[in-house]
């Protein structure tokens, strides 16, 4: 009986080509240049990481009430942050009224949560999203400002810290996107009056730095007004930021509109749709999806630009941290303060960036090659 050939069972790949050693060989030690870079990177880490960790974690002071608690070793003094934490979050918002800020934040989280969940029907999501965009700002404003429904009024000059940063960024974003879409459509309009108005608006606002806009709103505007007539400093800054960002947003959206092939417009028109229906149902959904990275980019830039309001004496997160570092009871802890502020800014910007990537993935309908 002839011997039947049985193939040898598959051998595992060599041990040094799989798992951690394999990954290290492939990615870190594949060529002399790579080896040099790896060694250099390790050396840099060795030089910088231990002192950093010692400062931030091991030698740091975490508990205490006063400055004296921090004088013992060379580490960071997180007590400084702890003592000023409420101020960094709410600014000078009266303590007894802070529940209003908290409940507005809770409402936003509860309202926005279904938008992130997978199983909610998309029609509901759209309604919820529009509701958040239109109704939420009103609710939040009434809660923050008060003076209605028996809530004591809280002057806007007492708003501060992260609250103020989020108010400016939030108001800027909610106003800038719709305004920007309208401006972008206007700039591509066939009607010369509308088109030139939009071009002038966009080029004017895009041509000046934000710092100039803020400065103008707080220093020049009151001089134009009749004596004794004032309106809220924060409101002036908010309007300035919103108009400024709208101009940028318009150009981002216009980029998306230009990427939509002419055939889409013509096909929609052939179906008998009017201008607004073409835009709302066919063109904008495609265009806005294309420009998500650009929109988020603008939002992130706006979030960080809010720190410029310190030049008009508004106490946003950055300015309130700076203010705390000049507290005579707590002098000499500016590093801790700025590290904390940087961490908060990073957290928000990074979350925005992750959310946009997630959104792109979900809206991906096969245009990507």
């Amino acid at each position, binding site marked *: 009986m002839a011997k039947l050939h049985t193939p040898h069972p598959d051998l595992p790949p060599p041990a040094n080509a799989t798992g951690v050693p394999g990954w290290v060989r492939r990615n870190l030690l594949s060529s002399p240049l790579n080896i040099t870079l790896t060694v250099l990177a390790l050396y840099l880490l060795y030089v910088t990481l231990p002192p950093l960790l010692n400062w931030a974690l091991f030698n740091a002071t975490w508990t205490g009430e006063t400055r004296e608690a921090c004088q013992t070793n060379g580490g960071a003094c997180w007590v400084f942050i702890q*003592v000023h934490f409420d101020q960094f979050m709410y600014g000078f918002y009266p303590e007894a009224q802070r529940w209003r800020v908290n409940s507005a934040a809770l409402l936003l989280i509860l309202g926005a949560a279904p938008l992130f969940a997978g199983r909610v029907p998309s029609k509901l999501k759209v309604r919820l999203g529009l509701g958040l965009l239109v109704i939420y700002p009103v609710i939040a404003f009434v809660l923050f400002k008060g003076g209605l429904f028996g809530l004591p009024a809280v*002057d806007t000059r007492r708003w501060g810290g992260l609250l103020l940063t989020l108010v400016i960024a939030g108001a800027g974003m909610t106003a800038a996107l719709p305004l920007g879409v309208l401006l972008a459509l206007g700039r591509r309009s066939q009607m010369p009056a509308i088109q030139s108005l939009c071009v002038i608006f966009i080029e004017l606002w895009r041509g000046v730095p934000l710092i100039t806009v803020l400065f103008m709103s707080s220093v020049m505007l009151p001089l134009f007004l009749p004596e004794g007539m*004032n309106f809220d*400093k924060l409101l002036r800054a908010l309007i300035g930021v919103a108009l400024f960002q709208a101009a940028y947003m318009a150009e981002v959206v216009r980029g998306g509109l230009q990427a939509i092939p002419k055939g889409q417009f013509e096909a929609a028109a052939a179906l008998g749709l009017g201008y607004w229906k073409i835009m709302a149902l066919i063109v904008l959904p495609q265009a806005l999806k294309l420009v998500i990275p650009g929109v988020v980019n603008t939002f992130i830039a706006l979030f960080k630009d809010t720190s410029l309001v310190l030049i008009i*004496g508004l106490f946003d997160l950055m*300015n309130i941290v700076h203010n705390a570092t000049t507290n005579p009871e707590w002098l000499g802890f500016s590093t801790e303060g700025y590290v904390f502020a940087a961490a908060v800014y990073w957290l928000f910007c990074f979350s925005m960036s992750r959310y946009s990537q997630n959104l792109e993935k979900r809206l991906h309908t096969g245009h990507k090659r």
Partner: protein
Amino acid sequence: MNLTKSLTKSLTATFAAVCLLASVSAVQAGATLDAIKKNGFIKCGVSDGLPGFSYADEKGNYSGIDVDVCRAVAAAVFGDPKKVKFTPLTAKERLTALQSGEIDVLSRNTTWTSSRDSAQGMNFTGVTYYDGQGFLINKKLGVKSAKELDGATVCVQAGTTTELNLSDYFRAHKMKFTPISYDKSDESAKSLEAGRCDVLTSDQSQLYAQRIKLAKPDEFIVLPEVISKEPLGPVVRHGDDDWFDIVKWTLFVMVDAEELGVNSKNVEEMKKSANPDIKRLLGVEGGKGKDFGLANDWMAVVIAQVGNYGEIFDRNVGKDSPLKIERGLNALWTQGGLQYAPPVR
């Protein structure tokens, strides 16, 4: 010319229309006091964070000399030092805020200069703090006077009058120096500590604040020379003399009270004093309230609720504060300083 005028007019009209929609608070020039009484509070402009002068702590409570001046004015008008709304202002905003009526009194370590008093439409009501530019130096260098600073490396804050005063001083004394400019006072203090510069220059009131930031404050001294005059005081709008008088005399009352030995603790006892100066000051004799349009005993109320000048100085910048600034020029004239107030009579 005509075009600009009509343009300004139409701009103003547009803005006015916009403003009618926004919340409007009307203040007429020449009737500041009436408007304040109607509002129920004084709108006071302070700095955006200068410990000792005006500073909001972690609870949002304001303190400082400049803040206490506003509280004293509120005590004078309403008998209640809490009836003040503080508006933090940056150095650039402060004049506009006063001109536009956003604030009633500016109490924000503002230096009294001729151009501000005339061209810029403001009235300085007095001097709450005589400041001047000085030098902070390490004791180890053994320098006892600013005249020995030839060839020194000097840390200075960029873009301030401090920088100009510094080069003026060295040029006038035919000395050489190397400036190192910093944006933030934190950086210059660290630089002095690390020995990158020999000496740090700034207003004296700031130097004391800088010194407590250092790890070993005792190793550094402030040199005796003052190379510029910086009289700081509250400011009101040009054109309302009644209001100007009230703010001005609130300051004078506090200085007079210190001179007469009246303070917030003994004011009630002092009302029984036989000294006619004290009797007039506390409103026991001669009605001095009507002339100002205020309550008859307003001066006593200011002293009782806010304190005399010495108390304000000590608790905010002096011996009871972390800054520990000596009275120096700010001592009473009877004690070798410059604080001098006209008599109440």
